[in-house]
């Protein structure tokens, strides 16, 4: 299994508070992704990174920011959490387009509840 660790695994927070989720990888993969999973919506891309300090928006990026200061870490921040951001958040990694075996490896997910 790919070395991807998400922290925390579960978090309950209050509306209006900032929240940061962490994704750490030991695979030295270039690409990292944040998805959210909601019933009836599948997995939707929030932000992704294609290298240190290189990030881009996904389809549901409003209300979220990311940072990648090291290859192994990709942080997702909710500046002011809202109840609509209650979801399961997945981090994923991939080698990138130069790979001959391109695929996503996923972390175990973070259940975030915003009350």
């Amino acid at each position, binding site marked *: 299994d790919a070395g991807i660790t998400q922290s925390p695994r579960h978090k309950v927070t209050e509306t209006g508070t900032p929240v940061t989720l962490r994704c750490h990888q030991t695979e030295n993969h270039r*690409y990292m*992704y944040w*998805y959210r999973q909601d019933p*009836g*919506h*599948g*997995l*939707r*891309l929030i932000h*992704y990174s*294609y290298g240190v300090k290189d990030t*881009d928006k*996904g*389809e549901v990026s409003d209300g979220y920011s990311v940072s990648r200061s090291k290859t192994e870490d990709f942080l997702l921040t909710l500046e002011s959490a809202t109840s609509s951001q209650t979801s*399961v958040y*997945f981090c*994923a990694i*991939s080698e*990138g*387009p130069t790979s001959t075996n*391109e*695929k*996503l490896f*996923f972390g*175990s*997910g973070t259940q975030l509840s915003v009350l």
Partner: protein
Amino acid sequence: AQTVTQSQPEMSVQEAETVTLSCTYDTSESDYYLFWYKQPPSRQMILVIRQEAYKQQNATENRFSVNFQKAAKSFSLKISDSQLGDAAMYFCAYKDRDDKIIFGKGTRLHILP
């Protein structure tokens, strides 16, 4: 923008039978990847099978195979000899050179003993 559509929110199949899950996608690209991922109740995302668009041969992994129809933009997953452990949510996904990987909304598969 690319889209991935899974038109079957839920399906059921008798144990040991064969089931096919549908997936269609929309793209103007010619070079891309397609994937099927499985998510059991444990929530872990598991790669089932992968197809490169430039390969005409359909990918196969043991009891899992795909029917890739590039012109029709269709990528269905066939599960043969269904087992209880196949019960899960199945997601179809698309990736092109933009490196974003887009998922469908999923199909929940039930296996009937």
